[in-house]
């Protein structure tokens, strides 16, 4: 690794960069923004930084510095002591644009007040052979998968700054301390700012190994730091993908075949072709696009383009047929085995009491606040893309392949996402936008989906049918548990991955790895794919399977005549495997006052789950009135993420997860009729309203020693805890979602 860079090279690089980008600006200058990622400002900074310092941890290509005009990967320090930290993932509201740079700043001993965060880009990552590593914001893994290299990057820079100061003062480095962007030599009472040291530090060889701080000495990690994007969001200055504006930009509205995987048979655009503002009507085979001078004209015209679709053989598919398909999966002879402890079938046959139940969760569209949007501009063999993407590298790959240009010719400009929820990681929409840009070559085109398109062409959370059989012995101990899942596979159909032993890990998540001490456990899986495309809906398998698992555990507790919390704790030995399940369950039930007297008619429910490297638990208190209105009195929900990097952001993620989760639990359902999704907009795919939102009490109980995710885990325990409480209140077991299908509504608080 060769991370040092002398200022002369920096300067040359910065100039080269400025020239290259100035040329790019001449052809592709977005309308200047008031804030956010402003390229001109970035250039200025790059220029001034030539007098400053660039420290990168991973600069494997530095031997070719002349080809590397970009100063560096993670850290730049300006003479005025401003520290620029790069962020290499997407920001869609999850807050890691703040918490990931906190990792670097912590070890750098940076004064956070003078830290500025800017996006790294996918094209820069490609050019530097992935100096920034993985850029995807998926799987709640930004922090847990990058914390180590980010902290090392910060620590490396810190050590170089300390050595630079020590050399200047001719004192041992061990006598110097770094704190708040300043190196101090206490014995001689001298100190210098990072801005003053940066040039010299950048000339030093990067240390090969660095000592990371002991968590007990952290000054930034663990503090509630306001998100860096808050000011721009509050002032309406944040630039989302949907806000992209380019000179001479055209707008496209699209419609794919209402029956999935159908094709355009013929189209007649004569009614709209000569309308004001309509530029072109495109038959793209898989979809139709109207390109116009503004989006509304494009969208309105699209309604009047007469399209005959070839719906193939799937035009008669219904939800009932899909359910029959899943039920047949329950009876099929060959099943993939995900877990097989002991001899479950035999143990069940010998059980004193056997409890059986089927649970069902429906297809769900994501309904991100910002529908799919991507702007693409193909000029010759150069392509620029502004896509609301959770994975800029995938965007780059898809864009290059679709346009037929080399990957090195593609620029993916980072934009904030108006929500992602897992829908914006697959790149179907980017592909469409680039296809349109190719057809309109030379002009920038912004393609935006309508809400209807978004709900009717989702990559849905798979519907899933789950069958549980539990065997209790005479003392009420669970001896055997058999869980069978009949559901589509996301990995096999969307990603076309080979499934190890035929098991899709997401379809059986929280079953194959349940923490309970049950000697005989069998989990098997019938892969039942349909023509309805499935994808990653925030929390994925953990958004639905824990509903079945933790509700069924309550059914077993009821059959055993035991308190649901005591019943669970009895099955969670205090060993390494289960200790965190146990500790989060104890922390949350204690915060909720489990066991204390409740007012008449109010009932509690509990659930405990694990996923994305974290442990979660939830207690809900509800009452249900004679009109079947559910009043949620309390939601107490907690997490053990190992380390709580930014506690206020965890609270925000949990509150957001409860909004998202309750929406799905009460109303979320996509049904299929004549091969198409019946719902189309918020009138029939209802979102939760502000006055329906209960107060959320978040318990953050980090036990340290590991790094868990935060963006997704909260949804896992919410549905079962809530439904357990509702079932207790009604004296009737609810085994399918959404609750509206049971006549239940959420009472306005």
């Amino acid at each position: 690794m060769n991370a040092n860079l002398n200022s002369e090279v920096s300067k040359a690089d910065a100039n080269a960069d400025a020239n290259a980008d100035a040329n790019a600006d001449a052809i592709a200058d977005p309308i200047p923004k008031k804030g956010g990622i402003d390229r001109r400002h970035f250039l200025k900074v790059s220029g001034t930084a030539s007098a400053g310092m660039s420290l990168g941890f991973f600069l494997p290509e530095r031997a070719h510095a002349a080809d590397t005009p970009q100063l560096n990967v993670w850290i730049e320090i300006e003479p005025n002591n401003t520290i620029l930290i790069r962020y290499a993932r997407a920001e869609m509201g999850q807050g890691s644009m703040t918490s990931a740079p906190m990792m670097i700043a912590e070890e750098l001993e940076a004064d956070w007040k003078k830290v500025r965060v800017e996006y790294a880009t996918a094209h820069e990552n490609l050019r530097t052979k992935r100096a920034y590593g993985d850029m995807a914001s998926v799987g709640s893994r930004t922090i847990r998968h990058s914390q180590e290299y980010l902290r090392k990057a910060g620590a490396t820079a810190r050590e170089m700054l300390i050595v630079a100061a020590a050399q200047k003062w001719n004192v041992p480095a061990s006598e110097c301390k770094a704190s708040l962007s300043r190196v101090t030599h206490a014995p001689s009472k001298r100190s210098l700012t990072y801005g003053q040291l940066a040039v010299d530090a950048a000339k030093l060889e990067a240390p090969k190994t660095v000592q990371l701080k002991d968590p007990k000495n952290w000054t930034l990690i663990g503090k509630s730091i306001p998100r860096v994007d808050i000011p721009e969001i509050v002032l309406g200055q944040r630039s989302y993908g949907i806000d992209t504006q380019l000179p001479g930009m055209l707008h496209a509205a699209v419609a794919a075949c209402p029956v999935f995987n159908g094709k355009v048979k013929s189209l007649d655009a004569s009614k709209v072709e000569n309308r004001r503002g309509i530029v072109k009507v495109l038959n793209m085979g898989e979809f139709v696009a109207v390109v116009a001078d503004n989006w509304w004209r494009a969208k309105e015209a699209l309604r009047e383009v007469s399209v005959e679709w070839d719906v193939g053989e799937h035009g008669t598919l219904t939800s009932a047929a899909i359910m029959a398909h899943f039920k047949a999966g329950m009876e099929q002879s060959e099943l993939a085995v995900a877990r097989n402890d002991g001899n479950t079938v035999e143990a069940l046959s010998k059980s004193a009491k056997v409890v059986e139940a089927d649970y069902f969760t429906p297809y769900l569209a994501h309904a991100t606040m910002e529908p799919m949007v991507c702007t693409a501009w193909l000029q010759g063999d150069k392509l620029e893309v502004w896509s609301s993407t959770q994975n800029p590298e995938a965007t780059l790959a898809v864009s290059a392949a679709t346009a037929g240009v080399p990957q090195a010719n593609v620029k993916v400009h980072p934009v904030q996402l108006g929500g992602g929820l897992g829908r914006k990681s697959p790149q179907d929409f980017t592909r469409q936008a680039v296809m349109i840009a190719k057809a309109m070559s030379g002009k920038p085109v912004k393609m935006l989906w309508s809400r209807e398109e978004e709900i009717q062409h989702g990559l849905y959370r798979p519907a899933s049918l789950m069958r549980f059989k539990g065997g209790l012995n005479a003392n009420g101990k669970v001896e055997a548990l058999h869980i069978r899942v009949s559901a589509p596979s996301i990995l096999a159909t969307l990603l076309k991955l080979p499934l190890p032993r035929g098991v899709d890990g997401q379809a059986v998540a929280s079953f194959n790895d349940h923490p309970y001490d049950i000697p005989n456990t069998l989990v098997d899986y019938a892969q039942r794919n349909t023509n309805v495309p499935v994808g990653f809906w925030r929390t994925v398998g953990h958004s639905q399977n824990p509903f079945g698992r933790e509700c069924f555990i309550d059914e077993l507790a009821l059959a055993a005549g035991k308190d649901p919390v005591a019943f669970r704790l009895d099955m969670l030995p205090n060993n390494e495997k289960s200790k965190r399940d146990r500790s989060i369950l104890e922390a949350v039930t204690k915060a909720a006052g489990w066991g204390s007297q409740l007012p008449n008619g109010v009932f509690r429910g509990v659930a405990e789950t694990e996923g994305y490297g974290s442990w979660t638990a939830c207690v809900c208190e509800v009452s249900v009135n004679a009109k079947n209105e559910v009043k949620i009195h309390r939601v107490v929900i907690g997490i053990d993420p190992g380390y709580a990097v930014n506690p206020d952001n965890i609270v925000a993620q949990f509150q957001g997860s409860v909004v998202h989760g309750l929406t799905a639990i009460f109303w979320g359902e996509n049904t299929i009729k004549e091969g198409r999704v019946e719902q189309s907009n918020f009138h029939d795919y209802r979102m939760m309203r502000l006055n329906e939102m209960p107060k959320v009490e978040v318990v953050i109980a980090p036990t340290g020693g590991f790094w868990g995710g935060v963006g997704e885990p909260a949804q896992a325990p919410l549905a079962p805890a809530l439904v357990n409480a509702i079932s207790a209140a009604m004296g009737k077991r609810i085994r399918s979602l959404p609750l509206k299908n049971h006549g239940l509504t959420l009472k306005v608080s």
Partner: protein
Amino acid sequence: MNSQHEVMKLESRVRRTALRSLLLAGFAMPWLFGRVVHAQRMNSGSLLSLNDMVQPIVKGAILLNKDLQIEAPLLADNGSLVPIQIQVQSPMSAQDHVTHIYLLSQRNPVTQMAVFQLGPWNGRAEVSTRVRLAGTQEVVALARLSNGEFRYKQMEIIVTESACVDAS
């Protein structure tokens, strides 16, 4: 030349390459070595060494890292359809030509992804195809020459992971 010795050297090269890609990725891909608790479920299988990949075919014959070119995208948005093109420098004469081109995967359940039979009638030793890749890995193109020697080239292809899979 001692071909076994050559392969040993190559293998250490692969190790170095793997190590380097680990560094490049900034430790973002600990699953590359498949030994971390948070194993990524997106990737199936474990990574083979170069030796494991090629020796069932090469069987100790002379193997050199030269004369091949692989053209493929560095990034693939998913592994289900990755275009790949192989060129071998060869006169393709009756005396001196490429007889086979093998495409080998470091991670797929089936290592030998494709075999192409060629002869002087082809004129050029060039093939293009599409392969499925079960995750980020080194892909090896291996050419068998009419004199019984082998040539190879390797390339890392990154399969981006657009998936909220729970990696715990």
